[in-house]
């Protein structure tokens, strides 16, 4: 069939690759935000509904009582601050990635943080199995396996972010590619 516009230019290997990497980066950014929100929800569920974590909270409260602080208020403030910090980091990286994918943000700060993120996640994986402080092998139950899976997925997500960002840069700089892929439907 006849082309209406210069479709053959929109479907070159480089253009297809650019589209693929932009999509992957956008999804990785959005996914990272969702994982951040989920990690906070998980944390809250664990400290409110799991016995050993609730006991840890009470222990913590006893310590803080010695300093004269109101333990319950202190705990809540601590949780809020930590949650906001975690969500903030995820939003910063995630939105940065999404904006870069859409071609509307120039900075690549998400790239540096993604590299840091993948290193930290890989380094902390063995800690699921071995506690270096107490020098004991940890019990691995189903929830640990699930957490490991989440972390492995995060590693892939970070790699997606890193590789996609680098490839997008490379493709845009290449003379063969003009960034004509501007169509986005809303909804």
């Amino acid at each position: 069939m006849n082309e209406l516009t210069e479709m053959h230019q929109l479907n070159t290997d480089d253009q297809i690759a650019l589209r693929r990497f932009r999509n992957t980066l956008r999804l990785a950014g959005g996914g990272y935000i969702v994982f951040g929100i989920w990690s906070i929800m998980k944390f809250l569920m664990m400290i409110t509904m799991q016995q050993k974590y609730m006991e840890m909270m009470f222990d913590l409260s006893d310590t803080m009582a010695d300093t004269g602080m109101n333990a319950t208020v202190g705990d809540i403030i601590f949780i809020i601050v930590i949650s906001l910090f975690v969500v903030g980091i995820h939003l910063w990286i995630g939105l940065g990635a999404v904006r870069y994918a859409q071609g509307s943000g120039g900075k690549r700060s998400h790239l540096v943080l993604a590299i840091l993120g993948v290193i930290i996640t890989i380094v902390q994986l063995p800690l699921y199995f071995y506690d270096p402080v107490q020098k004991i092998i940890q019990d691995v139950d189903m929830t640990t396996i699930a957490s490991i899976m989440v972390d492995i997925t995060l590693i892939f997500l970070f790699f997606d972010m890193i590789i996609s960002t680098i490839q997008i840069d490379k493709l845009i700089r290449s003379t063969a590619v003009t960034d004509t892929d501007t169509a986005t439907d809303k909804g």
Partner: protein
Amino acid sequence: MQEDFHYYATYCAAFIAGYTHDESLDIAYSAQFVDLCSRTVLVKLKAPVTAATTQLQLELMDARTDIIGIQDITRIWASFHFLPRDLYAYKEKRPKKYMNKYRLICGPNGDLVKKTVELAKDRPLQSIGIAMHVLADTWAHMNFAGTPSLVINNASNFCELIQTEIADGNGTVSGDETASYEEIPLTFRHSPSAPDDLDGHLYTNSLLQRDETSIMNLGHGRAGHLPDYSFIRYRYMPAWDDYRLTEKDNPSDYYRAFTQMVYAMRYLHGDLESFEVDRYDQDTVAPYEDRIRGILIKRQLVANDDWKAFGEELSGEEIPGFDLDRYQDEYMSASDDDRDDTFIGGFVQGAIAHKTMVSNEIFESGNKLAGFVQKL
């Protein structure tokens, strides 16, 4: 496609192909009836429900999406509205489960189109109408599959292509390849009751459901009514095409559908010895080309009036509006032995024959999505 093409345009094509006014009406009625012959209607008529050629929104809402439900849905939609282009298509490194759905992608000029038209040969006019509906829909609904599938039927990156100038300066309204186009991003909303806003480029589509077998992922729901508007040209990215963009030129596709229908009906009328795919009767339609293209590119939700006027000019006769109830009394008052001789009886037989043929072809290709088929 909508009533404007399935009823009125099919009438015009039938008349141009050599059928009389009354014959053209019967063909056109049957073509349009395919979009309305649901289980609900058949139960009311006490007709065999296996003849259902569509499912109403209500029926789809209630349809179960377990394996039997999926087979029911696929049998209807793949047979009558999304005829598969290539049941033996190959794509690298894809598992069988994926390929079963990929192979149901609709498109024109596949083997099944030839079988559809040949099946209608020497059969009543109702079968011709059914065949013309199916043939026409292969042009409008291409790149979507008649089975609920997120991985096949999802689509994104829509933009409309508005022709900004016509290079030859003769006022030719065809999709001239030297014309230039402006890209306008489309906005979709999920409001089935609100009509599409053509001027505001605001259209309705189905809600994104990340569930493989959700009814929202059946057919071209994710593209809304865009495939059914003859005037629209647009670009989008289908989920199955590895990040390639696809252009859809409806005015051009609909014109090809029209000329192919004329060619098919001339064969069915006995004027031609055979029907081959990828052939179009441009010569017979040539005197009317400008008129037809003018109707096709006119920016309107429904083109009934224009096609009706054209048809009445062709035949000199009045074309009545489509009336769903027209033949129902005849069928319901007939005795059991005489029902097959009524208009709806003929349609029912034609629908069952066509559905059987397509389901068998899908089953023979090793794909059980349309259910199990046993030969007598």
